[in-house]
């Protein structure tokens, strides 16, 4: 199993990063830190996708000297997917941060448990 993991060391690192982000998301009660964990998970996914597109010994998919052979270039599809993902993650992060700012202005804390307690008290 470890040789298989070593052959795919990029994917392994991506999975470990994903796990770190997920742990961060679950363990931290501070909203900003949760968002940072979420972004670490995003980066792990990009690393995984970009690594899937690579082929050993080939060039970036930009046509040079008119060579249009499949053997010459790496896979361009994951690059496009990662681009989409980055844009969406930027938007989602900005939206989450804006919501956090609104919560902070209302409850004057970033602790998610305290916010839940305060909002429950308000409901009563």
């Amino acid at each position, binding site marked *: 199993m470890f040789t298989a*993991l070593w052959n795919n060391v990029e994917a392994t690192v991506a*999975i470990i990063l*994903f*796990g770190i982000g997920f742990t961060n998301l*679950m363990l931290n009660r501070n909203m900003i830190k949760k968002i940072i964990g979420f972004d670490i998970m995003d980066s792990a996914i990009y690393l995984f996708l970009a690594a899937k597109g690579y082929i050993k010994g080939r060039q970036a998919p*930009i046509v040079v000297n008119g060579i249009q052979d499949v053997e010459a270039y790496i*896979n*361009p599809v994951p690059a496009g997917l990662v681009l989409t993902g980055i844009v969406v993650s930027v*938007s989602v992060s900005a939206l989450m941060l804006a919501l956090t700012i609104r919560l902070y202005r209302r409850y004057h804390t970033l602790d998610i448990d305290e916010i839940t307690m305060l909002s429950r008290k308000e409901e009563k």
Partner: protein
Amino acid sequence: MSKLRKDYETTLWYRLLCFVNGEEKPQEEPEEQVRVEEDKTIAIVPEDIWAPVEEDKRQLYDMYRHWTLGRGMKLFHRLYAVFAVFICAVIIGTLLYTVSYLPSFGDAHNPDNNEVAARYIEKGLQETGAVNIVTGMILDYRAFDTLGESHVLFVAAAAVMILLRLDKGKKGNQAQAAAEENDRIYEPKNDAILQKVAKVLVPPIIIFGIYVILNGHLSPGGGFSGGAIIGAGLILYLNAFGFAKTERFFTYKTYKRISIAALGFYALSKSYSFYTGANHLESFIPKGTPGAILSSGLILPLNICVGMVVACTMYGFYAVFRKGGM
């Protein structure tokens, strides 16, 4: 019919109905009478007799209450942390076990290097005119996807603005708005180092961003990366010189106009292929010679549109987070 019964209010059905509706039980009055009688009997007895019992009760209550607020909370948090780490470890283990079955890294015969990628590489230059195959893919074959992406950015900027923009007409926001206004006056701290560095760096950064956008179909880059670079340059300028200077050329109105014009042009120029049929994706703009700046049909204008939207959105995010408005 049951409403006609006199003892309707004591029936099981009525109580169930009240329970379902979340109302109080309709048995208040008789109980209150009983309580009043009890109070009378208690009033005869001196109150000191009940004091130790009350004290005990209070202690018991405090113990339970402090258990949930103090030690119970701690125990819950510790258990939660243990379970969280356990769940994360299980997820990482499962995913790593799956990764060990993946085909090895960088192999040309991996299943994701299939005929789709081959088609993009072999025919991409002839069909889109873009030397950069990734740009040809995202702005020609999959241009609708990119249109959606630009709209995601625009919608995110709109949502952030809805959440954070200060409404100066509203009462209660006046003080905050005044504070922000005050902040704006004193915001450019006239930091000599920052201003000098910004003076030197901002023009090359913006020119480099424009270069990246215009060469999107020839070299690595394109609308998204170039737009992000221009946005970074604008943010640096804003940090050095303050809002008073950036508002000479970039206000909320400018943002609105640029975003709507760029997105509208993109949507119109790409949705025309809806009307000409899904397979008819050729544009009337000539492809030009591959490698020249003015080539590859619609890709260059679309790159410029995307770049403008991204630059405005980046700057807008920063401005809204900083002072609640542009």
